């Protein structure tokens, strides 16, 4: 739940607390975020739970070479470059999973900041999705 905030960039953690190829489950303002350090400059912040069964991704394995994160519970592979699911659970096909959400990240001096949506941006996103109506009315859109 997003609480009203004046800024959109919220402090996550310090740069030296995230080693190369490491992952950290961090709380940013009111949201939990997984920080992945793919290389010295690239830091990716994404939803910390697997889209399959919500296993915590911080317990999984991250391969910095291929930029793929493997879930510890069922072995789902997530490509952190864009959040796509490359391999499904238990070695099956990727299926119809949505892309994992990634938060914008910026690094200032030695601190990592993550962008969280303001309530206005959240409303704008839901406005563009459309409102589900009664059966059949969606076809009129």
């Amino acid at each position, binding site marked *: 739940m997003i609480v*009203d905030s004046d800024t959109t960039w919220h*402090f996550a953690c*310090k740069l030296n*607390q995230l080693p190369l190829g490491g992952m950290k489950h*961090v*709380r940013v303002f009111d949201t939990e975020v997984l920080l992945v350090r793919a290389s010295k400059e690239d830091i990716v912040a994404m939803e910390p739970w697997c889209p399959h069964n919500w296993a915590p991704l911080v317990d999984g394995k991250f391969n910095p070479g291929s930029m793929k994160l493997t879930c510890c519970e069922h072995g789902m592979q997530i490509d952190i470059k864009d959040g796509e699911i490359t391999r499904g659970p238990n070695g099956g096909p990727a299926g119809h999973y949505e892309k994992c959400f990634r938060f914008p990240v910026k690094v200032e001096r030695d601190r990592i900041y993550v962008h969280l949506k303001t309530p206005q941006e959240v409303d704008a996103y839901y406005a563009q999705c459309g409102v589900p109506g009664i059966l059949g009315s969606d076809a009129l859109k």
Partner: protein
Amino acid sequence: MSSWIPLQTEAEVLESERAKEGFVGVGDKGPTKRYPHAYPIPGPETRAQRAWPAFTYVPPPAVIDMRKWRFETYGLVNNPLSLTYEELKALPTASSVEDHTCDDQILTTGHRFEGIDFRTIIELTQPDPDCEWILFECDGGHSVSHSIHKRMMLVYRRNGEPIDPSHGYPLRAWIPGDWGGLNPKWVRRIKFCESRDPDFYMTYFRQHGADPAILAAVYKSHVGSGAPIEAINHFLGFFYKTFWWDVRHNPMGARGKGIATGLRAPMYIGDDTWANYKTCL
């Protein structure tokens, strides 16, 4: 930084801490501190020691894996900690006899909490000098934010025994003078924040429509620091209506209502300290 999340300066926090120092008397269980309450508690139920009731605002974590349990500090620190339970117990200890007030209605006296003074943690982690706020993150998704200048203690032993699972084994925090709910149980991580991060209480009540001005007033209040009684009553009235089916002052009141009446505690993997724990509820 949010527009309504209340912030206090270090001077205000230290002043309210000083106001909380009650008289120091000696009871039959040893030196006791009593904290003056903001308003006379209508008939405080003083419970016997062994019947210290355990309530939680969020359901407790179902399982805690003690093999992977680590106490971590991160954020604006120069030396982030990652300690196992054994390493935590090896740190210099402090102990204190305290009264615990739950929800301002239930008072249990004379718990001897032993643990680590928070100043030890601060010396070890070396937070940045401009860091003013801490967020305790607990297993189960609960979180509490406090000022770094408050007097705090991380507790792992009570009356010589490790704390009960329903009271926060392996680690709980004790922040004297505040309502029982602001003392987090099952503490896992501490974040040293740039500004006050919203904790469970701020997000939960705000999302259910609580007035931010009242919430801010209540957050500024400490037990004994003279908060306006109307603010507290408004908060408690709103709070009780929201949680009426969750929180019971009488543990037996949960019977037959579809709420957990048994163990309000997690199961532990890899730890046999409380393998045979049973509650009487």
